């Protein structure tokens, strides 16, 4: 019972990855030239809106100059989150071990 949740999580991740790989193989083999696989749903939503003939009336003040820079910024966001999570879980653990020692 000790690691039930960890096991469930690992199994779900493995299933997720396996389905992804199978699906990816299928998509790559049927991909027409010029088509992009694994697009963002947000971009697909925007494209569906553009397809109705709508023109956005304002554009962002600043857009990351390339997808590399954009992924850097997303990584920074993830890193900030992970740092805070790790900090507090480490802090909790240290606190617990200290109180166990005394």
């Amino acid at each position: 019972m000790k690691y039930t949740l960890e096991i469930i999580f690992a199994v779900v991740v493995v299933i997720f990855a396996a389905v992804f790989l199978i699906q990816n193989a299928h998509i790559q083999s049927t991909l027409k030239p010029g088509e992009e696989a694994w697009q963002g749903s947000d971009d697909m939503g925007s494209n569906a809106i553009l397809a109705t003939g709508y023109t956005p009336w304002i554009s962002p003040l600043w857009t990351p100059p390339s997808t590399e820079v954009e992924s850097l910024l997303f990584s920074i966001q993830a890193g900030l989150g992970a740092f805070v999570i790790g900090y507090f879980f480490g802090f909790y653990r240290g606190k617990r071990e200290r109180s166990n020692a005394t």
Partner: protein
Amino acid sequence: MHIMEGFLPWQWCVFWYLVSAPFIIYGIYLLNRQVKEHRETLSLLAVSGAFIFLLSSLKMPSPVVGSCSHPTGTGLSVVLFGPIITAIISLIVLIFQALFMAHGGITTLGANVFSMGIAGPLLGYAVYRLGKAVNLNIFINIFLVTAVADLFTYVITAIELAAAFPATHGGFMISFETFFAIYAVTQVPLAILEGVLIALVFKYIIQSRSDILVSLKVLTQEQTAKILESFS
């Protein structure tokens, strides 16, 4: 779930700002009170906020449809601090993404915070209360809350866009089907994965700071003792 800058007619931008404003104002009040009166909960507030930061930055492939989307990460905060405080954390993340990544937008902020920070979390919270009322296992409950909050966020985005862009033939429903297929279907596997992750994280929180969970009234002293025993 991000509606990009300029992708909503201005009338709808104003509308969603007005809808979201009361929640945000009340949320700022609640957050202030939480920080002042329950300082011991501050570290968990930071952790739940950090999970929203972390998870909403991950663009993950959704194996069923072949597109990418990101989780919302709001489930933990909904269970620990309620949907209204979650709205404030979501607002901060959305402003960050709108300004620096051009992901989402300032004009569409009202609509985006409504789907991710308000509607999704509110339904998640309803699930949480219901699960508590029928004495559902806390981990299953947290899985459901997280998955529902995530999935419903994308359903709301589809509704927001369908309302703003009804199809010329068939109107709202046809348009809703299009956006629902783009946003909500993609999200199902991600919502499941996110739910399992947050349930696991919750175990670590019980093991680390069950005292805060008791003071937040998420669990009682007896319940935490029982859960901790089952993991030892």
